């Protein structure tokens, strides 16, 4: 395959010359390639997953025995707040976005996201906002008002340290990154599908990401406004959450949970997507009930915006509101249940292979269902009134977020690692890791149901001896060692496999979707010829036509003007140019965050100036890039 380079005419240059490094640190700072950014997302979220795990570990150490004082109450508050914030905003959600970055373009046969530089910007904003939030530990203490930071706990008079400012500003900035990335994904999925890739042929992971991205653009603004209001209160003396002035602190709870409930679906829908890819592949059967799966995803997204007050049953909204939100919460269980049955039906009668991804997917099915059942229990207001703010709730949301999202992302990690790196993760260590992580998980969180029902409050630094909580807590804490060991094995085997792992080949799992039609790892231009798509499982259609039920004749829906020309011997692919400006713009925002936090006008103005410069240079620089000419092997039919 010969590659001819042809540089596009230099457009308006900003002040900086256009970077062209392909290796070294600068190539990563300036990259706009969705695969590299996807890797950056995945690695960064694993880093934050590690930090949040250390925090969890410290908390569990403190709670292992009654009446210990390894960790002071003040530090404990910071630990659970940072743990929750990190897990939700900096680890699990970005992990989904990272997989989307890498695989959505490959799965729909696009060559990148619609706005590659914006994609880079989204990543850097996310990564730097994480760094920003974590510097709070050194700059006056971490946030300590819980991950939902209820007003008026966060007011300047109640909480004068810097921690709350780090929370508010950090999450606001990180939200900007999430928003632009979501918008970018929507445009990409709507506009850049390969010829023949109709909506009802999109891989389910892509569908779930599309729905997730729509949820993000509607859910993040209320959070952003709420954060902004508290920042205004603390910085400029507004009265949004000052009860003495007539304000209603409950407004924060409404705005937060109008975001917060959709957020849990923003976390779990990508996970559903991963599961919907893994289960059919390893059951050797097309996904059962594809249209129903899509529709129930859409239904979940709509209903996700109509259940937020189930987090507020005990705030005195009154019986009518409580009943209404209880009902909507029951209803949202229906599409979720449908999905579970469809996954089971996909496995039913298939040739199931329990490779590591499938092990995690199966564990997901069980664990998520159990978490869903406690969720339905919590949607009953009188029951919620009994267990609100106890370990029962902690057990519930860890079953759905840890057992649901984390386990399915581990499935995705094992599934896609060979595609991303070209090497297989070792199977034996993978199984060992699995058999430590999943039982460890149950050891941690199963007893918490009972501790919660006995009345053990959450967010409490210690408990009395001899009131029936000792054993449950000891079990929980012991479990962290088991699960932690499993995680260490996963990480270790990933590093090992990078150098020594068995070569994967293009298609180690006998995959169905387009990402398996290119090499592992994919070339930087993804596909030399984007395959024509005639089925939901296009790669299976080529390899095993008997496995897919063909619904419509070939090329019915392929736009004749745009189907790739046959007998092509050379293709020319546009590669967008690298750029400094996404990083510079996000770094300006990073500096500006400190300016705002420390009320430093000079730093603030400087960052705004840099941001302006970056925006204009960004626009003037243009997409840029070059065309790459790739010679094809003489006979190309389908995917090369």
């Amino acid at each position, binding site marked *: 395959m010969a590659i001819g380079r042809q540089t596009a005419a230099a457009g308006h240059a900003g002040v900086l010359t256009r970077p062209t490094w392909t290796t070294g640190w600068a190539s990563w700072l300036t990259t706009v390639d969705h695969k590299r950014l996807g890797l950056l997302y995945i690695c960064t979220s694993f880093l934050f997953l590690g930090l949040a795990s250390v925090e969890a570990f410290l908390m569990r150490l403190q709670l292992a025995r009654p009446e210990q004082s390894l960790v002071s109450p003040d530090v404990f508050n910071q630990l659970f707040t940072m743990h929750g914030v990190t897990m939700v905003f900096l680890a699990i959600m970005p992990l989904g976005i990272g997989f989307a970055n890498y695989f959505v373009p490959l799965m729909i046969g696009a060559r990148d996201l619609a706005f590659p530089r914006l994609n880079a910007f989204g990543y850097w904003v996310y990564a730097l906002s994480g760094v920003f939030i974590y510097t709070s530990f050194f700059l006056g203490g971490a946030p300590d008002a819980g991950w939902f930071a209820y007003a008026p706990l966060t007011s300047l008079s109640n909480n004068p340290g810097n921690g709350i400012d780090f929370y508010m500003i950090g999450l606001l900035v990180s939200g900007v990154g999430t928003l632009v990335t979501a918008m970018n994904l929507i445009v990409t999925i709507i506009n850049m599908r390969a010829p023949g890739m109709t909506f009802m042929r999109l891989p389910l992971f892509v569908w779930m990401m599309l729905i997730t991205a729509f949820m993000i653009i509607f859910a993040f*603004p209320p959070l952003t406004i709420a954060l902004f209001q508290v920042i205004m209160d603390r910085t400029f003396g*507004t009265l949004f959450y000052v009860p003495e002035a007539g304000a209603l602190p409950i407004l924060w709870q409404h705005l937060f949970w109008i975001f917060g409930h959709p957020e849990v679906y923003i976390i779990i829908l990508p996970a559903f997507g991963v599961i919907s890819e893994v289960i059919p592949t390893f059951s050797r059967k097309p996904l059962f009930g594809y249209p129903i799966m899509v529709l129930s995803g859409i239904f979940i997204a709509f209903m996700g915006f109509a259940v937020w007050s189930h987090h507020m049953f005990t705030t005195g909204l009154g019986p009518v509101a409580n009943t209404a939100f209880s009902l909507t919460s029951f209803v949202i269980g229906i599409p979720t249940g449908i999905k579970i049955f469809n996954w089971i039906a996909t496995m039913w009668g298939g040739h199931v292979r329990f490779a590591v991804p499938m092990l995690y997917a199966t564990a997901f099915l069980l664990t998520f269902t159990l978490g869903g059942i406690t969720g339905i229990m919590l949607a009953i207001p009188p029951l919620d009134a009994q267990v609100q703010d106890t370990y029962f709730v902690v057990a519930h949301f860890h079953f759905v977020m840890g057992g649901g999202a984390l386990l399915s992302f581990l499935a995705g990690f094992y599934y896609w690692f060979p595609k991303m790196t070209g090497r297989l993760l070792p199977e034996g260590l993978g199984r060992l890791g699995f058999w430590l992580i999943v039982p460890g998980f149950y050891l941690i969180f199963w007893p918490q149901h009972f501790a919660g029902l006995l009345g053990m409050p959450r967010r409490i630094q210690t408990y009395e001896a001899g009131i029936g909580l000792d054993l449950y807590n000891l079990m929980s804490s012991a479990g962290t060692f088991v699960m932690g060991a499993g995680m260490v094995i996963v990480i270790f085997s990933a590093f090992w496999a990078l150098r020594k792992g068995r070569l994967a080949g293009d298609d180690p799992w006998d995959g169905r979707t387009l990402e398996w039609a290119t090499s592992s790892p994919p070339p930087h231009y993804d596909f030399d010829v984007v395959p024509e798509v005639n089925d939901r499982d296009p790669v299976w259609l080529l390899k095993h036509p008997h496995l897919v039920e063909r619904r419509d004749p070939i090329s019915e829906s392929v736009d004749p003007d745009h189907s790739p020309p046959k007998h092509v011997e050379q293709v020319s692919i546009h590669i967008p140019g690298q750029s400094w400006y996404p990083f510079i713009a996000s770094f300006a925002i990073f500096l500006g965050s400190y300016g705002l936090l420390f009320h430093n006008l000079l730093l603030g103005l400087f960052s705004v100036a840099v941001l302006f410069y970056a925006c204009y240079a960004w626009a003037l620089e243009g997409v840029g890039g070059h065309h790459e000419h790739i010679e094809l092997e003489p006979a190309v039919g389908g995917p090369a």
Partner: protein
Amino acid sequence: MSHTVVAHSHEEYRSTRLPDIKLMMWIFLASDCMFFGSLIGSYLVYKDRSLVGPYPIDVFDINLTTISTFVLLMSSFLMVLALHELRVGNIKLFRLWTFGVAFFGSIFLGFQIFEFSHFVQEGLTLSQNLFGTTFFVLTGTHGVHVTIGVLLLLSLLIASYVRPVAAKDSVYLEVVGLYWHFVDIVWIVIFTVVYLVEFV
């Protein structure tokens, strides 16, 4: 190899034939609805909950705000003209109308600055009462939107002197136009629920 067929993808395939950037703006505006929705919602929740004055009716000058609203509406009209002229390739008129939109937008901002400083003189500040808090943050956010719109328009105007513009560039103006109309519509909502209701 007797002949080489080259598939060129300079004009890249798009599933919907809608330019990416236009789709992007629509999606951004959908999201922006929620931003303003949250701000307007907060304003309405706190309406009539201020414990001390000045109250809206003490400070609002409905005539003044009606005029500035009218100016903003007219700017949207000029926006339509500017886009039309660019599409038919009449660069001179395109520049004139684009300048007109930015100019009218600036007049609106001038009114807002005047209004704000007047209110402050009357004793209404960010931290005076809940009305001040919610009013300034809501209308201020809208003002920031208008300012960004003016900057975008001026940038397009300057760009038209620096490098040749052609009818095919009209998508950029169209996108800014979508934004501008949206900001206008939001103002109509704000004008209604913040100002007009005080006078019924």
